[in-house]
């Protein structure tokens, strides 16, 4: 390990810091005051951030082909020999090992950087909440799990982090556990994720059986050594199983239903876990295993299709939501769809680029929404907001920047990453591009609908809330400002070549993808020509501006129109408003069927297991024991009692003389003495005679 520079050799410290403070919160958190909790929990994440930056700086100092540093702390699951599918003997080994390469480096910078800002924000947002130390303990535990996830050098360890973030997500969604809706949402998230995780786990097993290794660094060589054909069915199966896991964690169709409900958690949690980091784990995982995906074009096509459809589908639900956090939740699902679209068309780096910019602007959107909710004493319904821009100006301006970024206005971060994805999609399939393009318009519309309903127009705030409106404390505003800066400039890291840039970010990530580039026959370049790229950008800018204008017209100019449109659309509006009745459909198809199964098993339990089995066995035991008792009472005890009764009977005369009175014994002695003496004298007389 010492062969590497300090930070690269001590990568394992990065997840350790938050783990230590999480443990501290667990054991002594109750006794600490809020400022001690702040110092410990924010401090540990900041330390992780410093180490991440250090690792990043030392990594880019290395030549591009050496940018993979692995440090194995110990062998977690020692070598287990087993037969691979091709009959050869292999060892199953799971290291407790960390790997740092451009991809994980980007991820740890996002996780610790955005994570630190959100920790700072939380110190303001959660200041008056109960369970303060518990919140930060969970948050730190989440940071630990997420860092394990992105730093793992093998699939099993990635899975450990994967499950860890799922657990923390569950704990934090249900943070307000006294509210039934919150605890239900936590359970829903956990259970839906289990379905995905089952797929992921099967995928790991199959990878191990097929390739004989679960180390990321060895997957590429194993694929090369195995001479797998393009579209090998087993590789496709692995890719699909992994994708099942990704749909669960990253909230894609059909497993996206938990994410909107997850908004029950505190807003910083929504920002950190359900927008910036955890939900992007699926994208990270697909990118991490891109070598397998690139040999499974059918799976890639499915990933792209699911991503595109999810993007459109979720955006359409977002258009009609009235809860400010729900809009952002569906927006997150939609943006994750873009990332999968990127992965599906082979533009993994573009997916990660969008992941990063999304972490900035969506994290900011959630934090700003939290600031709005904070200002309005907990109000989340946009119908009870309006005209807030003057009252909470910092929140307004930062949120507006994030909205411009997500809508894709040049040159904000979202524009660069989204157009990179749309450009790649266009090369692959015009239909996928069309879906993504249309979704971009809808995104602009629903995001500006949110801005206009919240900050502009006339105030619809409840009267008793109105005079409490206040701008949030500095601890909340500073993270907003920093994230706003990143939402503007974050995209410039990969300034496109046609604008004279060098796509540095994408180039930086390329080595992670390039090893398997051989598998892909056609090299990628811009859509047709640079002019085509510009043309596409102008096209999407036009649609975005149209969407914004449309939102302005409906929610500022003619505020009576949305209601009329909703009424004229009738059934279709209700369908979208009720989220396409997907929850109800799942309830009808799976949840209630599972409940029925539970009830049936319950009936089976009470009648067969309990009635026949347990109670029957009990009855039989009682019956046998009653027989045994009869035998015991009448035969065993009876024979003994008969004997004693006979002795008792025969002892009756003897008992008469034993009356316990010392004088009667004496009398008997005297009488006996006289009797004996009399007899003696009688005999004496006769003998003499």
């Amino acid at each position, binding site marked *: 390990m010492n062969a590497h520079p300090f930070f690269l050799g001590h990568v394992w410290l990065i997840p350790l810091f938050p783990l230590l403070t999480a443990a501290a919160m667990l054991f002594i958190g109750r006794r600490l005051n809020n400022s001690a909790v702040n110092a410990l929990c924010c401090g540990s994440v900041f330390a992780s951030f410093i180490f991440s930056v250090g690792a990043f700086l030392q990594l880019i100092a290395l030549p591009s082909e050496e940018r993979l540093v692995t440090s194995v702390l110990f062998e977690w699951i020692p070598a287990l020999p087993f037969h691979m599918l091709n009959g050869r003997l292999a060892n199953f080994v799971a290291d407790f090992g960390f790997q740092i390469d451009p991809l994980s480096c980007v991820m740890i910078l996002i996780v610790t950087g955005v994570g630190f800002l959100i920790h700072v924000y939380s110190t303001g947002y959660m200041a008056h909440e109960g369970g303060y130390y518990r919140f930060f303990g969970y948050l730190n535990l989440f940071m630990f799990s997420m860092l394990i996830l992105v730093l793992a050098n093998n699939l099993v360890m990635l899975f450990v982090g994967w499950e860890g973030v799922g657990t923390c997500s569950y704990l934090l969604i249900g943070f307000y556990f006294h509210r039934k809706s919150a605890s239900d949402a936590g359970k829903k998230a956990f259970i839906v994720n289990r379905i995905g995780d089952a797929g992921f786990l099967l995928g790991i097993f199959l990878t191990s059986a097929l390739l004989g290794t679960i180390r990321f660094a060895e997957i590429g060589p194993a694929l090369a050594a195995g001479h797998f054909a393009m579209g090998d069915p087993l590789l496709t199966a692995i890719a699909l199983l992994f994708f099942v896991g990704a749909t669960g964690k990253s909230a894609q169709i059909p497993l996206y239903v938990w994410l909107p409900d997850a908004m029950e958690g505190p807003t910083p949690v929504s920002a950190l876990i359900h927008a910036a980091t955890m939900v992007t784990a699926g994208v990270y995982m697909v990118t991490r295993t891109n070598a397998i995906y690139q040999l499974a074009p059918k799976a890639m096509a499915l990933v792209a299709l699911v991503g595109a459809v999810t993007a459109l589908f979720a955006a359409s639900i977002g258009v009609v939501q009235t809860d400010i956090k729900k809009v952002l939740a569906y927006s997150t699902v939609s943006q994750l769809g873009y990332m999968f679209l990127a992965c599906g068309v082979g533009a993994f780096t573009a997916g990660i680029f969008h992941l990063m910019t999304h972490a900035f602007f969506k994290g900011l959107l959630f934090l700003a929404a939290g600031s709005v909710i904070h200002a309005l004493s907990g109000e989340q319904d946009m119908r009870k907001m309006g005209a807030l821009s003057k009252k909470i100006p910092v929140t307004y301006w930062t949120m507006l920047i994030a909205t411009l970024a997500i809508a894709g206005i040049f040159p904000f971060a979202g524009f660069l990453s989204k157009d990179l994805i749309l450009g790649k999609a266009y090369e692959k399939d015009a239909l996928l591009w069309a879906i993504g393009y249309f979704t971009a318009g809808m995104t602009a519309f629903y995001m500006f609908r949110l801005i206009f309903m919240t900050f502009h127009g006339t105030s619809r705030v409840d009267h008793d809330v109105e005079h409490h409106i206040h701008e949030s404390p500095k601890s909340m505003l500073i993270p907003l400002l920093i994230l706003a800066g990143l939402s503007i400039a974050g995209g410039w890291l990969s300034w496109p070549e046609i604008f004279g840039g060098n796509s540095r970010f994408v180039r930086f990530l390329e080595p992670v993808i390039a090893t398997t580039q051989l598998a892909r026959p056609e090299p990628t370049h811009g859509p047709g020509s640079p002019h085509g790229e510009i043309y596409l950008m102008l096209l999407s800018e036009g649609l975005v501006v149209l969407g914004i204008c449309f939102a302005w017209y409906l929610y500022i100019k003619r505020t009576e129109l949305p209601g009329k449109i909703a009424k004229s659309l009738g059934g279709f509006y209700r369908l979208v408003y009720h989220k396409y009745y997907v929850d109800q459909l799942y309830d009808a198809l799976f949840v209630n069927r599972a409940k029925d199964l539970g009830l049936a098993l319950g009936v089976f339990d009470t009648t067969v297991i309990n009635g026949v089995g347990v109670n029957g066995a009990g009855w039989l035991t009682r019956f046998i024991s009653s027989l045994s008792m009869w035998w015991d009472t009448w035969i065993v005890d009876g024979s003994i009692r008969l004997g004693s009764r006979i002795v008792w009977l025969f002892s009756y005369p003897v008992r008469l003389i034993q009356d*316990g*009175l*010392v004088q009667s014994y004496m009398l008997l002695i005297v009488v006996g003495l006289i009797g004996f003496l009399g007899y003696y004298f009688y005999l004496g007389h006769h003998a003499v005679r």
Partner: protein
Amino acid sequence: MNATIPTDYYLWLSLALFTIGVIGVLTRRNVIIILMVFSRMWGSVDGQVFAIFVITDAAAEAAVGLGIILAFFRNRETLLADEMDMLKW
């Protein structure tokens, strides 16, 4: 003449004392009285050497007997022999 008292007289006196003792023991209810008349029975013992032994014996017996009676009274608060029937059980 011969002034010695005939042996028969001793024997009859012994018999009388013993009989009085037995009757006393059998008829009285109070254990102190019983102990007292029981001591009279010792008087029926003959022989000069035996008489010496008996004096010692009787003293010991009186001490032990009174000790037992005292202990018994503390437990049962009675001195009546017909209420002392616990040996039956």
